[in-house]
């Protein structure tokens, strides 16, 4: 996807949002709030994909990492009666699963797709088996409203009055962009994902870079999971992540492995879903609910068909590093 194309699209969408806001303030804000809520786990999960793939490791297990984290976070909070503790349990679970993938895909040099699939299958099995009905959270997560900024029209109520994970999801992509493209860690991470033999001969430890990055990314997958069950929904059901981990991989590609690109792509996904839901709620269009629910999946396929071949993945992605 060329940058020009992306900027044009972003400009058109922004203009449409402003026009909509002028026409109907209440509905526009509500659609945008919905869109952001929808986008948050996708953003965080896409960052997981970006960190892993920029390091040369495919993480197809994001879905499973999120699902287990959502599960552990929710039941951790319910069992301990402490939301913060539950959240930490959820995030920690993500990191443990990151380490799980790192051991398989990096240390043991397993086929990376299989290593990720193992996590996905394990997650579905464990979270279904240990699922208990009727648990409730000890309260709700706080909404942090930033004084001043939150009174900006349109942007204020949407962006500056949210839970902590939502703020994190908006800040982390910017931070990750700076880390990837401006710091030593980023230069080395990208070299490891593009041409690990060049990193190795320059004295960079390819294996350890990949290991720690995959584990670190697991932490973000944990945040995405904990957000879903604790901050967004306040509940947990079987199959709760509903393919968001895979959608996030599509968003990563759509955003050309760039954190800011993925942030925009995730919001675009959310917006599509938000607009469709609003139209249906208003009975403007009589589409059955099932078709609305299909929307993110259809959109994923369409977008991937458009961008595939136009963006280039990191050259060494998917290949365990072997010294010659």
């Amino acid at each position, binding site marked *: 996807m060329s940058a020009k194309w992306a900027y044009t699209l972003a400009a058109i969408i922004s203009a449409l949002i402003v026009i909509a806001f002028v026409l109907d303030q209440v509905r526009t804000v509500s659609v945008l709030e919905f869109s952001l809520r929808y986008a948050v786990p996708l953003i965080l999960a896409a960052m997981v994909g970006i960190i892993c793939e920029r390091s040369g490791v495919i993480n197809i297990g994001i879905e499973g990492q999120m699902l287990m984290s959502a599960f552990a976070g929710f039941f951790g909070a319910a069992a301990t009666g402490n939301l913060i503790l539950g959240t930490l349990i959820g995030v920690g679970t993500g990191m443990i699963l990151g380490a799980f993938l790192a051991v398989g895909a990096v240390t043991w040099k397993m086929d990376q797709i299989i290593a990720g699939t193992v996590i996905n299958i394990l997650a579905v099995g464990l979270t279904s088996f240990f699922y208990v009905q009727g648990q409730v959270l000890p309260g709700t997560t706080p909404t942090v409203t930033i004084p001043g900024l939150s009174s900006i029209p349109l942007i204020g109520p949407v962006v500056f009055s949210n839970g902590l994970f939502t703020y994190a999801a908006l800040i982390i992509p910017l931070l990750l962009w700076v880390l990837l493209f401006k*710091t030593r860690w980023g*230069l080395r991470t990208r070299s490891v994902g*593009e*041409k690990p033999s060049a990193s190795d*001969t*320059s*004295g960079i430890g390819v294996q350890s870079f990949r290991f720690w990055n995959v584990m670190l990314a697991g932490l973000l997958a944990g945040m995405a999971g904990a957000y879903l069950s604790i901050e967004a929904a306040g509940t947990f059901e079987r199959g709760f992540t509903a393919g968001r981990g895979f959608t996030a991989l599509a968003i990563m590609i759509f955003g050309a492995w760039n954190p800011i690109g993925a942030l925009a792509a995730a919001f675009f996904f959310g917006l599509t879903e938000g607009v469709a839901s609003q139209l249906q709620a208003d009975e403007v269009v009589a589409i059955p609910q099932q078709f609305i629910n299909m929307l993110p999946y259809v959109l994923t396929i369409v977008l991937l068909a458009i961008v595939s071949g136009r963006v280039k993945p990191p050259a060494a992605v998917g290949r365990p590093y072997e010294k010659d």
Partner: protein
Amino acid sequence: MADRRVLLQASGLTKRFPGVVANEDVSLTLHEGEILALLGENGAGKSTLVKMIYGLYAPDEGEVLIKGEAVRLSGPRDAIRRGIGMVHQHFQLVPVFTVAENVILGDEPIRWPFVNMRKAKAEVARLAEEFGLQVDVDAKVEDLPVGTQQRVEILKALYRKADILIMDEPTAVLTPQETDELLNVLRGFAANGVGVIFITHKLREVLAVADTIEVLRGGKVVGTTTPADTDAAGLAQMMVGRSVLLTVEKSPAETADVVLDVVGLSATNDIGLPAVRDVSLQVRAGEILGIAGVEGNGQRELVQALTGLRTCRAQSITVNGADALGKSPRAIHAMGVGHVPEDRETDGIVGPYSVADNLVLDRYDEPEFARMGVRNRGAVTALADELVGQFDIRTPSSETTAQSLSGGNKQKVVIARELAANPALLIAAQPTRGVDVGSIEFIHSRIVAARDRGAAVLLVSAELDEVLGLADRIAVMYDGRLVETISAEEADRGRIGLLMAGHTAEDS
């Protein structure tokens, strides 16, 4: 050299891998300002030796002294810290990074918390200036020609303040002019007190630039000499262990009818850009047409187009008068076209198949080798055993898997298969790439024999010496065009070099 400071001394180095001794009791000494050539065939142990010096392998026995200090290197990082720089045969550069990013990778200037790119660029530009290695620090490496990429590799070593520079087969990818430039740069380093270890199997370069020559064979040092005390024939004999014919003996070509006739062929490369532009050529029975040129100027696409592996546009392509344009590879093969592909590992052999099966890959289904879909193993083995003997393929048996053979013997399998059918036209792309000197001699003699039998031969090679030695007529390919065709007698290394670098016939 004896009065200069010793930069590096290795003594009694031995490295064993399961089943082979890669290096046995190897020693070398490198002084300040010395260019030491390590000469040897593929598999002679040159790479293993320098990998031990660079810390990529730990020696099983022996010791390495760097500037008088005995060291046990823990890895490249350690070697770099002690002033050893290595320019690898396969460039270790990140294609999507800029020149400056590649040079600083692993040793980045920092202005916390960021990489100080401004300082990095200034430093790289200063080094490039100082050592006469012109390069744009902001250019992306993937956009640069290989000669420039190599400069980036050298800059990487210089940036790390290397005073011992190891160059692994640095001229394999260069034009003759680029090679001369590089040799000059190396002389400049030596004048500045840098010690250079120069690995190659090209005798001409060794004689031109080395102060000291150490020859390896079968993992052992077989001799140390200087250019003043030896010549090409002497070095070749040391490398191979017997006397070798460096020039191909051949009689003048006796040409007959046109076999391959190509008019106006154009083709694109893998990403859809024009690679072959309006090429016309003719090859007659009984002659070898050699196509010289730096790799990546469309030779690969030309060969693929002619053998049916790549779609192309052309006014006509005929083989012995029959239309070959748009035919499948199999149909073209059936017209009497043999093909030695440039990448034998992927296109020439099926690694996990036996040598015998590889030898009948193109004919396994013919009545002689199969009846009603059932293979006649006996006939296959009989033919294979015959070809193994005839083409001197060194293999434990014809049932051994092809992938376990050495590069030279794999190539002999390909050559044997393609020549066994007595093709009217042989298209040979880089037929001796990565092949040892002894096998090169053999393969060359086979190609000449095919010519003498009356076959038309189209030889595509990036090795100018090979083209000069074998071809009866020489065409130079640059940027997708055949820029000029010269008869072999008139061929002149310097002029062809200029044509390969894109100079037109007028200004050469």
